[in-house]
């Protein structure tokens, strides 16, 4: 049984990266079996691009795609009118490794399947 690799990426590390660079960095790591834990979230167009890139990279034998999970916090705007949720942590991993993910409001727990990775 091999171990599970986890990569933690700070938001600073991504500050100057273009969307494409971000997405390729994530996919490269996930394709090798790592679970990426990223500070902050992706924009809607980056999320769509992430799905598109994943679809291009799927090969039926070795890489079946990704699972994405997020933890949010409530951030009320300056006037306190709109309660928007901001993503603080994004977790992206190989779909066949991220077996059980349970999410309650503030807690996300994952069980990795190491036989598949």
């Amino acid at each position, binding site marked *: 049984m091999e171990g599970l690799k986890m990569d933690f990426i700070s938001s600073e590390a991504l500050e100057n990266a273009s969307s494409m660079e971000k997405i390729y960095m994530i996919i490269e790591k996930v394709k090798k079996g790592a679970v990426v834990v990223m500070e902050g979230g992706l924009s*809607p167009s980056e999320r*769509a691009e992430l799905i598109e890139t994943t679809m291009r990279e799927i090969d039926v034998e070795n890489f079946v*795609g990704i699972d994405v999970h997020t933890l949010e916090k409530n951030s009320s705007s300056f006037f306190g009118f709109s309660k928007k949720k901001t993503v603080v942590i994004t977790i992206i991993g190989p779909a066949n490794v991220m077996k059980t993910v349970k999410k309650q409001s503030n807690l996300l727990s994952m069980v990795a399947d190491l036989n598949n990775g």
Partner: protein
Amino acid sequence: MSFFDFLINLFKRNKKVSIGLYGHPNSGKTTLANQIAKDWTGKDIGSASNIPHETRTVLKQEKIVIKDGENELDFDIIDTPGIATKIDYQNFLEFGLEEDEAKERAKEATKGIIEAIKWLDDVTGVLLVVDATTDPLTQTNITIIGNLEARNIPFIVVANKIDMEDANPNRIVSVFPQHTVVPVSALNGEKTDELYKVMFKKFN
């Protein structure tokens, strides 16, 4: 009718309305597209199936006109392949597909998802079809909604499969409180009249 209204109508007539059906595999997009097409043109659009990723290329039905008294909506239906972040061909084996068929289906499904995402640039309105028996807060739904908002594309969240015992359309309302949610059963046509009413308002 004022001259201004006249101009608006003229403009509307020239603007083509393309309504995309988006959502997870198996949420009932094709079933709903067929129901709408059957109600207003008498024929089906595509094949529906309990095996996920049944629709693997975008299907288009041009010129559907729905009417209700004064209201009229003239549009093309774009039925898109279900969007997912993963596709494991082994899941198809459980439905009795041969290994080769299953792998081919998986490959086609990946292409279909890319095509569905590309079509977000071309639709003028969207019905986001959500299976009301499942958790609505998913990567797929969040990504679709985020992209529609960013593009200012009007959309309706369709809480589908309300005929099923474990359907919970209220859960969909509670996670998307700022959006219009319409519960229906695409399979037996329950409450689709409500949906048409909301479509006149949203997409005209």
